[in-house]
C-alpha cells in the first residue's frame, strides 16, 4: 500500500494554460523583508491571474533597488533597466514602437520624485498607456538611505538626520498632470495591491500606483513615516478595490449593495467598495481634495483615487496604424519612387 503512488493534482493554470511558474523571475538580491519583493510577487500574481502572456509584457525601470525588481519577475518578458530617473522616456519610445505590448514601469521614489520629476510629469501628461509603479520607501535605498523627495516632513534617518522639506505627493501630482488611473497601496496589503494591479492591467492609459514599500534596512524604524509600523497605524483606505475580469467571475466575494462600478475599456468592471460616503473616483477635484486633506491629517490614504476611462491616451492621439511600428515591413515604410520624383519636381 505504502508503495502505491498517490495521484498528483495537476498544477493550477490560467486561461492561457500557463502556471504561475511561467511568470517567475530570477532570485531576488534585495534585502530579506524588503517591501519591493512583496510587490514583485503581486505583479506575478496579477499577470498570472489576468492571463497576460509573458512575451507580451514589457518591463521598464530606472535605477535603484526598486528598479532592480524587474529582474525578479517574469523572466520571459523583455526588460529594460535604464538610467536613474529616465524610465519614462525609455517607456514612451518602447510603447510607440510596439503599441501591442503591455508595459509595466517600475520606479522608486528617488528615481521618480527627485531626478525623474521632469520625465514623470510629462509621461503623466501624455497619458501614455503604461502601468507606472512607484515602490515608495521615502529613501534612496541603493545608495544607503538618504532622504528622497517623498520622505515626510520630520521623518528621521537612521543617522538621526531629520527631513525638513515637505513630501511630494506623487498621486496628487499624477492626477493633476493627466494620469487616468491613480491609486496608492501598501506592499504589505496583498489583497488590495493585487486587485489594483489587475484593474490596472485592464486600463488603457497611464496607471500611476504609488506603493508604500518599507526599506527594512534604512527606513523601517520609529520616526519614519514609511515604516511598516507607521503605515499600519496611519493607513486609511478610502476604497477597497475588487476587480472583476470579464473572463473570471469573482463577484460573489463582494456585497453588491455597497458597490460602485467603473466600466473598463476591455469591458471588465472595476468595483470599488465605498468606505467614505459619496467618494467618487471620477471627480478630479474631489480626489485632489481628499488627498490634500488626508495629508494635512497625516494620514496615508490608500485605494484608487481617480479614474478616467474616456480620455484618449497618447497612442490614440498619434493616430498610429494598429500594426506595431516596429513590425512594419519595408514596403509600408519606404514611399515609392514617384513620391521622391514629385518632391524633387517641387524643388525646381
Amino acid at each position, binding site marked *: 500500500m505504502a508503495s502505491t503512488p498517490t495521484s498528483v493534482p495537476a498544477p493550477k493554470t490560467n486561461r492561457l494554460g500557463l502556471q504561475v511558474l511561467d511568470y517567475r523571475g530570477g532570485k531576488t538580491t534585495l534585502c530579506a523583508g524588503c517591501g519591493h519583493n512583496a510587490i514583485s510577487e503581486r505583479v506575478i500574481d496579477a499577470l498570472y491571474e489576468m492571463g497576460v502572456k*509573458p*512575451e*507580451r509584457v*514589457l518591463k*521598464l525601470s530606472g535605477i535603484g533597488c526598486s528598479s532592480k525588481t*524587474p*529582474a525578479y519577475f517574469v*523572466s*520571459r*518578458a*523583455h*526588460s*529594460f*533597466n*535604464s*538610467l536613474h530617473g*529616465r524610465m*519614462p*522616456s*525609455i*517607456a*514612451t*519610445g*518602447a*510603447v*510607440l*514602437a*510596439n503599441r*501591442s*505590448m503591455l508595459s509595466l514601469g517600475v520606479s522608486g521614489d528617488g528615481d521618480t520624485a527627485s531626478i525623474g520629476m*521632469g*520625465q514623470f*510629469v*510629462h509621461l503623466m501628461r501624455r497619458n501614455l498607456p503604461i502601468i507606472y509603479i512607484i515602490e515608495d520607501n521615502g529613501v534612496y535605498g541603493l545608495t544607503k538611505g538618504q532622504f528622497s523627495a517623498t520622505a515626510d516632513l520630520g521623518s528621521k534617518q537612521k543617522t538621526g538626520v531629520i527631513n525638513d522639506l515637505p513630501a511630494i505627493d506623487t498621486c496628487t501630482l499624477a492626477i493633476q498632470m493627466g494620469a487616468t488611473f491613480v491609486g496608492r497601496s501598501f506592499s504589505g496589503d496583498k489583497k488590495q495591491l493585487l486587485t489594483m494591479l489587475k484593474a490596472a492591467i485592464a486600463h488603457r492609459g497611464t496607471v500611476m500606483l504609488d506603493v508604500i514599500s518599507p526599506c527594512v534596512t534604512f527606513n523601517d524604524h520609529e520616526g519614519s513615516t514609511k515604516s511598516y509600523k507607521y503605515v499600519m497605524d496611519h493607513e486609511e483606505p478610502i476604497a477597497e478595490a475588487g476587480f472583476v475580469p470579464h473572463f473570471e467571475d469573482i463577484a460573489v466575494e463582494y456585497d453588491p449593495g455597497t458597490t460602485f462600478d467603473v466600466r473598463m475599456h476591455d469591458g471588465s468592471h472595476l468595483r470599488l467598495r465605498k468606505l467614505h460616503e459619496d467618494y467618487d473616483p471620477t471627480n478630479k477635484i474631489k480626489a485632489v481634495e481628499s488627498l490634500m486633506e488626508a495629508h494635512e491629517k497625516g494620514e496615508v490614504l490608500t485605494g484608487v483615487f481617480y479614474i478616467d476611462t474616456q480620455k484618449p491616451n497618447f497612442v490614440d492621439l*498619434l*493616430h*498610429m*496604424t*494598429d500594426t*506595431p*511600428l*516596429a*513590425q*512594419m515591413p*519595408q514596403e*509600408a*515604410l*519606404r*514611399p515609392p*519612387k514617384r*513620391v*521622391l*520624383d514629385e*518632391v*524633387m519636381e517641387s*524643388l*525646381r
Partner: protein
Amino acid sequence: MASGDLAVQDLAQGSERNRIVNDFSIQVATVNGSGSQSANTVLLRSLFRMGIPVSGKNLFPSNIAGLPTWYTIRCSKHGYIARKKEIDMLVAMNPETAKDDVMSLDSGAAVVYDEPLKLDAMRSDLIFYSVPYDKLVSTVCPEAKLRKLVKNMIYVGAVAQLLGIDMKQVEAALRKQFAKKIKAADLNMNAARAGYDYAAASLTKKDPLWVEQMNENEGKVIIDGNAAVALGAMFAGVTVVTWYPITPSSSVCEQLIDYMKKYRIGPDGKATFAIVQAEDELAAIGMVLGASWAGARSMTATSGPGISLMTEFTGMGYYAEIPAVIFDIQRVGPSTGLPTRTSQGDVLSTAFLGHGDTKNVMLFPGSVTECFTMAGDAFDVAEQLQTPVFVLSDLDLGMNNWMSEPFPYPDKPFKRGKVLTAEDLTRLGGFARYKDVDKDGIPYRTLPGTDHPAAAYFTRGSGHNEKAQYSERPDDYQNNMERLARKFETARSIVPRPEVVANNGVKVGVIAYGSSDFAVRESRDQLKREYRVEVDYLRIRAFPFSREVHEFIEKHDRVYVVEQNRDSQMLSLLKLDINPSHTPRLRSVRHFNGLPIDARSVTDDIISQEGK
C-alpha cells in the same frame, strides 16, 4: 570735377572694357522679420532658372524681429557654391547697418540703397544706385500695412534690371514662391516691375556685373540640408521621431512632419509613424533608445546643447548596444554660443560623448545629397552595429539653400542588422545577447514581442555577461569591453567610405569634411591657378576612419586638415588613430568665426604654411 566722380567714371568705362559675367556675389542687408526672405528667394531662383550656378546664404541673428540680417547670393559660372568673402553688389535696406556695410566693401563694388539713406556721400570708390522705395511702393501698394513687406520686392526688380536678369524668370520664380496666393503674387510682381522700370528709367549702369543665360542647372533642385535629412529619414523608413526645438535643427523635424503627413499615411488612413515633441533632449534621446530597442527605426535631431544633454544616454546606448540615430546640426559653441552661426565644433566631444571608455560612430554629410543618403546610411549603420550613430551636419549645410542634382532613389533594402526571429530561436534553441558569435564584435538581439519563451533578455547599463545577466566579474567585464572595441574596429568597414577626390601622388594632401568641402574644392583651383600648387584631396565621411584615410596620409608629406573649429578636432581624432610616425605630417587649417568657411581663407592659410 570731383575726384569722386572721376573714380566712378573710370569704373564706368572699366565696366565696359571688362564685363564680369555670372561670377559675383550680391549681399542684401535687411532687418529680420521684415519679410525680405521671399524677395531674396525670388532673386536666387531667378538666377537659378537662368541656368547659372548659384548659392544663397542667410546670415541671421538669434532673435525674432528687428535685428540685422544679411542674405548673400553668389552666382558662379565655375559652379563654386561656397561662401565668397568679397561682396560685389550690396543692397542696403537696413539703416542701422548701412554705414558699416558700405565701409566694409572692397573698392569698386556697387551699392543699391534706399534714397533717404544718402549713402553715396560716404565713399567715392564705389558705385551707388539710389532707389526711392517708399515713393515706388506707395504707387503699387495702396494698402499701407502691406507696404513694409512689398517694399522688398522692389529691389529685386531694380537689381534684375541692373544685372540683366530676365524678368520672365523673375515672374516665374515669384509665382512659384507665392504658389496659390494669386493676389499676393500679383501685388509683389507689380512691385518688382516698379523696381525694374525705375532702374531702367533712372539708373545708369556703371558697374561691370552682368548675368547671362547658361545651361548648368538642367534638372537640378534647390533645397536645404535639413529638408534633405528629413526626406532621407522618411525614405529610410523612420517610424519614431522625437525632438525638442533648437536652432538650427528644428526645421529637420518640422519639415519631416510635413513630409510624413503627406507621404506616410497607410492605406487605413493612419500614420505609419509617431513624431513626438519631447519635453527636453534627455527625453528625446531616451525615447529614441526605447523605440530602437523595441525594434523601430528611430531618430532625433538637435544641436550642441542638446548633444551635451544626451551624454548619459549615449553612454548607455554604446554599452547596452542599442541603435539610435542622432542628427547634430552643429552651431557655434561652447554653451549657448552663437545659435545662428555655423561650426564643426562637436566632432571631438561627440566621439567621446559618455563617461568611461565610450566611443561613438559619426557620419559627416558633405552636401545636401549626402544629407539625404547618409540619413539612410545612418539607420543601416546604427542597426548593423547596434550603437548610437551621430550624423554631424551644420547650420550652413542645414539651413541654407543649395543647388543639387535630384536625389537618387534608395533602391537597396534596409539593413536591419542581426535580429533573431522566433523561428531562429526555435532552430538555435536560444541565444546569448552579448556573445560574439561571428567574431566581428557584433552580437545578436531579439525584439520585444518575439513570440518565443527564449526570446527575452534583460537590457541594462550595468555590468553583464554574454547572457545579459548581471555580472561584476572582472573577466566578464573585460571580455565584454574588448568585444566592444572589436565592434568599433568592425565599424571601420561598415561606415561610409571617404571620398578620395584627388590622389595624384603630389606631396601635399588636404583632408576636410562636411560643409568645408565646397570651399576646399574651390581653394584647390585657386592654389593651382594662382600659386601652381597642386594638392590631393580626401574628404572624410565617417568616424571611425577606414583604411583609405590612413593610406592617404601615408602617401603625402604634408597633410592639411581643414575644419571649422578652434581646436583642430578632426585632426585630433586622426592623431589618435594613425601610425604615430605620421603624426608630424598633419597640419591644421582652422576657420572659426561663425561664418561659413571660404576658399580664400583656406588658400591663404595653406600658402603661408607652405611658406610661399
